[in-house]
């Protein structure tokens, strides 16, 4: 048990920190879910890649640094602490890439990994369907073999970044006779596929953060099949592990958010701004001050952000020792998604009547970033398997409670 970073780890940390300090855009980029903002973020990905900081945990041949898990956690801590832009390539890098490393042919790895790392090809996930959300195995998009080709018909939905993405990784039904999670296959589909229509869908914030995909006799070549035909479920489940576990939401992100919350607490805790108790029978209800209730919540959020950190360092140690994460990833997904909501809700509660101001409001705190982050956080308990489903998984697979 030694939580001191080694000199090598410290050097690694210093290197990314310096690079970020020198290169992080001083002005925030536009939302990655707008046409302009998407391209701005793609340019940032290219810059990261050029400096070798796009995918540090990947092998060098694909643009990485072969860094250790601990170093990757440090990288994420530094990344988010620096206020660097969000990662428009995250769906590819975090969700698809682990699957490619595990299941793809050499040719596929050669074809897909470098453009993914460099930001030239941005990926979006096409799994959910209107009638297959929590119950993913119920999906019904058909892919019928026609020689070397699959012919697709059906609809996908909730494809994040899908409005502007270059490629989609999809789960489709290749064997209509097989039940539920059998008979599925995993396909990689370019956006310009004939017969594929991409309809942008606005998220709660009004930006087209989602897309719907409509397949009408869309033809996808068998070279784009990931893993074996009919084995799509097994292939996909490797990715859901990544999605719920370390890969998608590293603790650095929440540590940085909790630290910002502490700063907000400090900035509002000037005693001169705090409502005195004697006034309370008057009309005043204090706005925008850090009362002790908020202090309690801030401390809780901060402690939880660090708890997640230690959980991840502990998991990294076990993963480095050859163990797998398994169903515990469900714990993490519940934890970070609810922590993220709590951090931003606490901030909004402290901001009082200014909480609702958007980026367009002159008086918004941090350019409306708290409300933006809150809106984003609200999706956390829903996507990648609702937290209700995750709690079932914890209860059944970790605790061993009976399924029914």
């Amino acid at each position: 048990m030694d939580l001191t970073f080694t000199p090598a780890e410290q050097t690694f940390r210093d290197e990314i920190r310096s690079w970020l300090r020198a290169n992080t855009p001083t002005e925030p980029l536009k939302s990655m879910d707008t046409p302009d903002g998407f391209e701005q973020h793609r340019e940032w990905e290219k810059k990261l890649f050029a400096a070798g900081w796009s995918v540090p945990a990947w092998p060098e041949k694909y643009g990485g640094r072969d860094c250790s898990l601990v170093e990757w956690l440090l990288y994420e801590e530094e990344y988010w602490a620096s206020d660097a832009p969000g990662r428009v390539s995250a769906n590819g890098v975090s969700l698809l890439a682990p699957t490619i490393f595990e299941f793809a042919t050499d040719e596929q790895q050669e074809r897909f990994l470098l453009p993914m790392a460099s930001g030239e090809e941005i990926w979006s996930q096409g799994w959910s369907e209107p009638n297959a959300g929590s119950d993913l195995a119920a999906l019904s998009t058909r892919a019928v073999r026609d020689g070397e080709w699959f012919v697709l018909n059906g609809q996908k939905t909730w494809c994040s970044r899908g409005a502007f993405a270059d490629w989609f990784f999809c789960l489709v039904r290749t064997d209509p006779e097989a039940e539920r999670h059998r008979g599925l296959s995993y396909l990689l589909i370019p956006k310009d596929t004939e017969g594929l229509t991409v309809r942008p869908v606005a998220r709660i914030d009004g930006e087209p953060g989602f897309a719907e995909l409509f397949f009408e006799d869309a033809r996808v070549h068998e070279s784009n099949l990931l893993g074996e035909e009919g084995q799509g479920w097994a292939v996909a489940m490797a990715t859901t592990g990544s999605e719920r576990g370390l890969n998608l939401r590293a603790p650095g992100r929440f540590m940085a958010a909790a630290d910002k919350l502490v700063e907000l607490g400090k900035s509002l805790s000037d005693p001169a701004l705090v409502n005195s108790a004697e006034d309370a029978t008057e009309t005043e209800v204090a706005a925008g001050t850090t009362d002790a209730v908020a202090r309690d919540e801030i401390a809780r959020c901060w402690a939880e952000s660090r708890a997640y950190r230690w959980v991840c360092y502990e998991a990294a140690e076990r993963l480095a020792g050859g163990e797998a994460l398994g169903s515990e990833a469900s714990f993490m997904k519940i934890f970070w998604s609810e922590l993220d909501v709590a951090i931003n809700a606490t901030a909004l509660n402290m901001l009082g009547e200014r909480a609702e101001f958007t980026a367009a409001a002159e008086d918004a705190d941090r350019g409306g970033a708290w409300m933006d982050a809150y809106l984003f956080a609200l999706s956390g308990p829903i996507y990648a398997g609702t937290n209700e489903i995750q709690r079932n998984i914890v209860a059944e697979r970790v605790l061993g409670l009976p399924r029914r």
Partner: protein
Amino acid sequence: MKFAFTEEQQVFAETLSDVFAKRCPPEAVRACWDSPVGYSEDLWGTLAEMGVLAITAPEDAGGLGGDERDLVQLMEAAGRAAAPLPLLEHVAVGIPALAEAKGAAAEGAEGAAASQHWLSQAISGEALVTAGVRDKGTVRDKGTARDKNADSSTQIQYVNYAAQADVAILSYQGELYLADRKDYTTYEQPSVDGTRRIARVEWSPDAATRLAGVSASLTFDRGATAAAAYCVGLAQHMLDATVEYVKEREQFGKPVGSYQAVKHHLADVAKAISFARPSVYAAAWAVSQSAVLQRAGSENITPENAVSDRAQYVSAAKSLASDAADLAAAKCLQCHGAIGYTFEHDLQLWLKRAWTTSVSWGSASQHRHRLATLLGI
């Protein structure tokens, strides 16, 4: 003790519910996002014609002489429809304050005179009144433009419909003032809720326009009670809509509403609403009684006690109602899943009104803070 509305009040509330159902469907709410005034002037005109704007005005001023008990279910119905209308500012807060601004002290004479003018305009709907009632001015928010302003007499507030209104009732150091639209400057602050029209208001209090004889504290409590009722309505609609959705939506071969986790989420919402609602009605009663006492002067109960009791009722009610709206927003979004997270789905219209209404006129924790102080802790 009779905890029930009159038949007249019930019929009135149902009538208004019908009006909102017909005239303020989700598409109408959505349309207000892009309207400069943020509300349907057409519907507002209809309400004026129906006499709704006259409810809280005294009969001798041409009003209906109603009070908060007549208003509370209207606010709740407006909440169910997520109706973006200046009902709170104009009917619940503005008109009663204008009506009370008579027999004013000398220094407020101008305010009293002006208030009579604005009162009749407000009742007819010719003029729009808004209100921003805060504190004595000693407490201010960092991060406003206040700090940039060298003139220390300039006061800052955030007021809904400030730019759209013809006249605003603003508070300064525990007193209320009447400010003509030309007497204050507005800087619009776009809100996550596209039907809000919040502006930073900069103005300099003028003793001549003070609304003498009008209690700022009572006026604040009117706003808080109306906001609480609106919160209850918002929560109720979100619950109803979600119950319908989870009955229909199937996953794993059965309605998601048959899963115990979903059931318990929604049972919690139903419980929160059921316990907030009577407290809001009780607060409306307390505000109405407090106003009577203040008008009549002390008789059996010292006004001091009445004020303290009223504020306890109001802070209890607003804290429960804000919490109910926030809980409903969180749970109903979760039970909808991704579809509820889209701009296309109507749920977001209610979510955003819930987030903003639960905070305005005091958030739950701010009202608990006030309540604790009132209880002597």
